[in-house]
C-alpha cells in the first residue's frame, strides 16, 4: 500500500488535477482546441525545463536560463533592427546561448564554483547584457519582421471545427522536438547515462573512469542553447523583445523538474516526467483562469500545489523525520 502511494501518488495527483478541471469546466476543458492552447502556452517552459533536466540530472542547477532567454530575444530583435535576415539572426542568438552555456560550464566544472553561485552571477551578467544591448527598451512593431511573429501564430493544419481550421502550433512542434532530443540524449546514449552516474555519486563516477569535468561543462551547453531557443520562441509569440521578458521561466522550469521528480521511481529527474510537470503547471494556469480564480490567488494555489506534491513525495520516500 505504502509502496503504491510512493510509486504512483504523484501520478494520481496529476490525474486528479485534470479530472477536477474536466468536471468543473465540462464544456471547454477537455476540448482539442483547449489542449492545443495549453501545449502552446507551455512550449517555451517545456524547452527550458527539458534542458534544465540535463543539468539537474547531475545534481546541478542553472539559474541563468531566464535571463539567457531574455538576452537571446533582445539579440535577435537587435539584429533585425540592423537588417539581418531571420535565419542569420536566429543562428546568432542561438550561438549566444551556446557561448553563455559553455561559459557557465567552465565556471562550474573547471573553475569549480558552486552552480548556484556561478549561475546566479551569470544570471546577473546576461540580464545586464540584455539591458545594455536593448538600452532597456522594448523592441517591437515594424522592427520585427512579420514572418518572425507569424511563426508562433502558425502551424500545419490538422483538422477543422465549424469552418475554423485547427493548426498544430509551430511552437508545440519545436518543443516536442527538443523534448525528444533530450530524451534520446539522457536515456539512449552513454553520455546521458554518465550524467546520471555523476548525479548518483560524482566521486564514484570519477573513480570509475567517467570524465566528470568535460561532461559537466558540456551539459551546461544544453541549458544555454535551450534557454536561448525558448527566448526566441517567446520573442516570436509576442512579436517583440524586452530585456526582462524571459526572466520568469527560471523558477517555473525548476519547479517543473521537481514536480516531475515526484513521478519517477527513484526520484531522479527524467525528461518525460519533467514534461508531465510542465503540463501540470500549464493545466493549472489554464484551468484556474477559466474558473475565474483571481490571478494572485492562482499563484498562491500553484505554489501550494507544488509544495504539497513534492512534500508528499518526500514523505512517501522517507517517512516523517522527527529527529
Amino acid at each position, binding site marked *: 500500500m505504502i509502496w503504491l502511494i510512493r510509486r504512483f501518488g504523484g501520478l494520481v495527483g496529476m490525474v486528479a488535477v485534470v479530472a477536477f478541471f474536466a468536471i468543473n469546466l465540462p464544456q471547454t476543458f477537455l476540448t482539442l482546441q483547449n489542449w492545443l*492552447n495549453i501545449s502552446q502556452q507551455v512550449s517555451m517552459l517545456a524547452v527550458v525545463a527539458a534542458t534544465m533536466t540535463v543539468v539537474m540530472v547531475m545534481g546541478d542547477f542553472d539559474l541563468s536560463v531566464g535571463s539567457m532567454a531574455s538576452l537571446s530575444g533582445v539579440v535577435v530583435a537587435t539584429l533585425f533592427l540592423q537588417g539581418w535576415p531571420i535565419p542569420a539572426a536566429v543562428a546568432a542568438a542561438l550561438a549566444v546561448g551556446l557561448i553563455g552555456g559553455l561559459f557557465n560550464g567552465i565556471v562550474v566544472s573547471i573553475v569549480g564554483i558552486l552552480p548556484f553561485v556561478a549561475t546566479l552571477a551569470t544570471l546577473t551578467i546576461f540580464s545586464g547584457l540584455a539591458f545594455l544591448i536593448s538600452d532597456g527598451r522594448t523592441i517591437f512593431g515594424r522592427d520585427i519582421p512579420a514572418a518572425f511573429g507569424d511563426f508562433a501564430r502558425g502551424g500545419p493544419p490538422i483538422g477543422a471545427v465549424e469552418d475554423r481550421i485547427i493548426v498544430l502550433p509551430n511552437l508545440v512542434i519545436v518543443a516536442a522536438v527538443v523534448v525528444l532530443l533530450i530524451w534520446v540524449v539522457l536515456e539512449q546514449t552513454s553520455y546521458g547515462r554518465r550524467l546520471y552516474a555523476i548525479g548518483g555519486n560524482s566521486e564514484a563516477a570519477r573513480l570509475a573512469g567517467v570524465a566528470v569535468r568535460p561532461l559537466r561543462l558540456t551539459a551546461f551547453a544544453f541549458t544555454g542553447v535551450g534557454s536561448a531557443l525558448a527566448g526566441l520562441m517567446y520573442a516570436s509569440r509576442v512579436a517583440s523583445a524586452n530585456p*526582462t521578458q524571459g526572466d*520568469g521561466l527560471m523558477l517555473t522550469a525548476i519547479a517543473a523538474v521537481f514536480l516531475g521528480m515526484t513521478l519517477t521511481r527513484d526520484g531522479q529527474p527524467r525528461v518525460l516526467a519533467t514534461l508531465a510537470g510542465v503540463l501540470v503547471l500549464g493545466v493549472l494556469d489554464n484551468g484556474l483562469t477559466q*474558473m475565474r480564480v483571481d490571478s494572485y490567488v492562482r499563484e498562491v494555489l500553484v505554489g501550494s500545489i507544488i509544495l504539497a506534491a513534492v512534500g508528499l513525495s518526500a514523505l512517501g520516500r522517507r517517512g516523517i523525520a522527527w529527529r
Partner: protein
Amino acid sequence: MTLRTALAGVVSAIGLGAPALAQDVAVITPYLAQPGTQFYVDGFTARAEELGWDVNVIDTAGDVAAVISRIEDVVTQGVDAIVINVDPAQVGAGLQTAADAGIPVVGMDAGSDPLVAANVTSNGYAMAAETAVYVANRIDGEGGVVMFTFDPFPPVQVRGVIADAVFANFPDIEVIDRITPDVSDGGIADSRAQMEAILSANPEPGSIAAVWAAWDQPALGALQAIEAAGRDGEGIVITGIDANPEARAAIASGGNFEASIAQDFDGIGRTAADTVARLLGGEELVQRVIYVPTELVTSANAE
C-alpha cells in the same frame, strides 16, 4: 482586486460558485503593479459593478506572453468581452483568437490595432496643445523657448509635433533648442545636464522665456538646472505633461514649474466599461479611438 473578487475566486475554485448570469468581462494586463494601471482598473471595476457585470481582473506580473495565454483561456471560457492594457502589437496572437471567436476586445490606453474594437485613452495632441498654448500666452507670444521632446516613442512624438506647430504660429517665439534627453536613467538627470548647458550658452537674463517639456521628467530636470544656476528669479516658465506627484509638488510650491496636464485614469477605466457596454449592446463603433478629457494642473489645483 478586492477581497470580494479574491473570495469569489476561491469559492469558484472549490466548485461552489454559481454559474454567472451577468455579463462576463475579463480585464488582462501585465502592468497591474504600476500606479496608472491600478487607477484604470479601479475605475473600470467600479463602473462594471454599477452595470452588474462579473469582472475577472488577471495580472500576469509583467509577462506579456502570458497575456496571450490568458486571452486564449478566457476565450475558451467564453467571456462576453475582454479588456486589455498592453500594446496590442505584442499580443496579436491572442487578439486573433478572440476575433475568431467573435469576442470584442477593448483597449484601456493600449494602442490602436485592427483587432481592437476601440482604444480608450487620453488625447496626446490635445494635451500638448494645451501646455504649448499656456506657454505662449504666459510669455505674451514672445521670447526664446527650449523644447524637450522624445520622437522615438510615438505617444510622445505627437506631443512634440503639436508644440512645434503652436510655437511656429507665433512670429516672435523662437525655439532656441529642441532636445531629446537620454531617458535610460529616468530622464531627469540628463535633462538637467542639457539644460545647464543651454543656460551657460544663454547667460543674458530673459534670453530664455520658457521651457516646454513633452512629459514631466525633463521639466523637473530643467527646473533643477534653473534653480542650481540661481536663475529662478528670471521668470522662466516651465510646463510638463502627466502631472506626476513630483511635478504636482513642484507646481504647488509656486516656482518656475507652472503647469502640467493630468490624465483622467479613473475616467479612462470608466469609459472603457461604457465602451464595452456599447459593444455588448450590439453597437458598431465608428470611432475606434475614444478620448477621455484631461485637466490642466496649475498652482490653483495642484494640491
